[in-house]
């Protein structure tokens, strides 16, 4: 049975290599784009490495949802609508949305992609590989 520390250790390695940062900078609460300088192309690299390292399959959009903001009912005036927040919760069950919910600015969406979110996703995937999300 793989434990959280072991998963965190390997996730740190993946992120350090993908983003060109030191492993020590990869803290659990670090945001990929804000703190670690990730760009959209790096997300694909991260998915490749996670799949290989943990021998899991990450369906497209499972870890990094795409087109969340596509529907007008989800976004209004630069903020997510209540339906938008619900949709986000549905699509990112492993992210911590408590802070974001209070002020759901679209511009702050990328901050939800944290290292901890990835660790939780991998933990859940390693326990039940066939489950999606």
């Amino acid at each position: 049975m793989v434990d959280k520390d072991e998963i965190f250790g390997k996730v740190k390695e993946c992120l350090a290599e993908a983003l060109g940062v030191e492993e020590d900078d990869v803290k659990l609460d670090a945001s990929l784009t804000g703190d670690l300088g990730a760009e959209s192309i790096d997300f694909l690299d991260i998915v490749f490495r996670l799949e290989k390292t943990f021998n899991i399959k990450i369906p497209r959009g499972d870890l990094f949802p795409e087109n969340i903001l596509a529907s007008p009912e989800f976004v209004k005036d630069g903020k997510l609508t209540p339906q938008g927040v619900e949709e986000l919760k549905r699509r990112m069950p492993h992210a911590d949305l408590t802070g974001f919910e209070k002020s759901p600015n679209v511009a702050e969406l990328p901050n939800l992609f944290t290292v901890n979110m990835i660790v939780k996703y991998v933990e859940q995937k390693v326990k039940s590989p066939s489950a999606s999300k």
Partner: protein
Amino acid sequence: MRWIFVDRFVTLEKGRYAKAVKNVSMGEEHLHDHFPSYPVMPNSLIIEALAQTGGLLAGHSTDFREKVILAKIERAEFFRMVTPGDQMVLEVRIVENREEGCKVIGEVSVNGTRVASATLMFVNLSSNQAKGWKAENFVFTKEFLALLGVTRLNGSWQVNGLKESREGKPAL
């Protein structure tokens, strides 16, 4: 006309491996300035040659439906200089492949000696937020494909005159 840094494809295993060659010639004007009296193929253009070889392998794997573009150079190493008269042998292998894009390892050699190596990541524009891009494939234009001997025959894409599997001692 774009800079085409591949002269001919030698081997193409769909979705897996390709080998191509590029001849370095004093006829290439950029060599006159790089450097004056000491022509050397710029390393960035060696990467470009690998990217074109890898990009075509990637594009061919989805029958050129996708606009494949080079997105990330993860690693690039250069071991020896490449000079006019050299024939670069470019070998690429797809190591990761998804709908969104793929990762390719490339090796370059001249006369059996390794001169460069790189790991490249490509994305498929069409399937990723392709808003605002033209509908037709501006990456794999008819011109580009024709120059490389790529044609459509009986419903499938072929690269003319090449072997479909490796021989001898490929680097990959």
